[in-house]
Each structure stands twice: as C-alpha cells, then as structure tokens.
C-alpha cells in the first residue's frame, strides 16, 4: 500500500480516492491523529486522508509518521 519516492518519503500507493484502503490503513495505524475537521476529505472519520500527518501531493499523499508504517503495511 506504500511506495518510497525519490526523496525517501513513504507515499500512499492508492492515490487520492482509495477511500476504503485509506480507512483501513488508518485503522491499523497507532499514529493516526485526526486533522482539523475543515481539512477532512473522507467520509470515514478515521482515514489516512483525514490524518494530521498526511501531506498531500499532486497524485496522493506522503505519510509524515513513517516509523509506524511497518505496523500498518498491508
């Protein structure tokens, strides 16, 4: 579910509209923290798309708490 980009960042491989996968990953992630509600884009409240540690890119987002991803990688 995650790929490493040229900068060594962990990028969500599902893009910007993989609603189920983003929710599933967030439910498995101990670092999930909801962002300001105004920045939520997913209908599922617990979703990587609504997380304070995601940083949007043009096609997807970077997880800024990658140390936890080993525990949540599907």
């Amino acid at each position, binding site marked *: 579910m995650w790929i490493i980009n040229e900068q060594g960042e962990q990028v969500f491989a599902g893009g910007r509209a993989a609603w189920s996968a983003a929710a599933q990953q967030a439910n498995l992630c101990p670092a999930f923290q909801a962002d300001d509600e105004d920045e*939520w884009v997913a209908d599922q409240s617990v979703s990587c798309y609504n997380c304070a540690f995601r940083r949007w890119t043009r096609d997807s987002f970077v997880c800024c708490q990658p140390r936890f991803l080993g525990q949540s990688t599907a």
Partner: protein
Amino acid sequence: MHILISIDDTDEMKRDMIEVRGTGELAAMIAARIEERGWGRCEPVTRHQLLVHPDIPYTSHNSAMCFAAQIPGHRLPDITELAEEFLAVESAPGSDPGLCIAVPERILMPGWLISFGFMAKNLVLKKDEAYELADALGIHLSEHGGTGDGVIGAMAGAGLRFSGNDGRFRGKLKFKTANNTITVKQVCTSTIVEQVKSIKDGRVLDLEERVFLGEGPKAVLMNGLAVMLVESCSAEAKEPCQWQTCSKSRVKAY
C-alpha cells in the same frame, strides 16, 4: 466599510503529539477579537484550496483562510495592527505566515485580484508577484516570520473570497432539529446557508423541499452566497427523502 482579511501558512506539521492550531482556527480567532473589541462584524471564514506542487512549500494541504468584515473605516489601522501582532505571536514556529487585508471598494482593478487567486490554484507564483499586485491595487500585504511565502496564499485567499465562487465555509453546519430531515427553509433560517442547490444540475431547491441531513454537512461559497449542496437520496437512505446533503468526499472539490 467592507474588508477582506486573509491569512496563510501559519501552521506547522504536528510533532510529538503537540497540538498546533490550524490556519482556520487562527482566522476565526482574529475575527472573534475584532468583534470583542466592537471594531466590526465578521462573516464566517472560508477555506480556499491552492495548488499542491513540489515547488511550493506547504505544511500538508496548501489552503488559505479568509473572512469578510464590516467595519467603521477609521478602525482599519487598528484591525491591521491587531492581525499583524496576532500572527506574529500565534503562528507556529517554523511557519511562513502572510497577511492580506483588502478593501474591495477601493480596488480599481478587481479582476486582477480575482485572477491572482485562481492562478494560485493552478500555477506556481512568486512572492514578488504578490507584492507587485498588492502595490498596484493598494492592498495591505505583510509577512510575519519564516520565509514569508504565506503572502502568496494570503493574497490568493482574498482574491478567491472576493470572487464569490471558491472555497467552503469553515466548520460543520449545526442544526437544531430532533430528526434528520429538515426543510430548506429551516436550513436557511437556522444556519449561515442562504441557498440549497442540487450538485447534479445546480437547481436551487424550493423552501418547502425536504433534505435528509448526513454527516457533517458543509456550506460552499457560490455566487457570493453560502450554499449547501445536496444530491438525490441513495436507495440505502434511512429515511425516505428526495434529497440528502453531499458527503465530504463530494464537497472536497470546492
């Protein structure tokens, strides 16, 4: 006097679970302070999405926040000073805050400001361009720490709010109702919403039409009005109704 106050780049990524105030919260706090001092009446804050691009430094989503206020003209310097001092103190360490205060009635080329806003949604703009435009249009633009790159987003936020056709209002719409189905008239009398529209074809719903309230509905800025978007009820809807509020994933485009 009608003014627009727009801020950007005031936040920083949360670290070690330390709470960081978002730009929207800071905008709402500035609005509250203006009203507490009796310096004017403020309208709700809107959020404006700008371009996400590798060449643009941003925290996590690159959005600007703006609100309008109705003030006595002689309070403009006080409000400018208040907003500047507030950003200098309250912005997160490591952020690059920018502040824009525009007086629409004094802008002789309003299209330039609006164009700047929409360009910032599609192009990488430079700080110098924002300052040149501010100078040409007589708009207050100031930076309050870091690189000050937030002036680009702040200027864009003011332009987009001024356009009346961009962004969504901060916060969820709250309804005082016992059930989840409400008339358009009730929506418009109990919230900031001025119009309810179908997201499919833009039809304005009649006041007597009923809407099922889904999770956390939001208003968007459209033709200068706070608009709540609705869609046809899904077959799985809990209550039989022709319309339901649009979900977050549908409104995110605004």
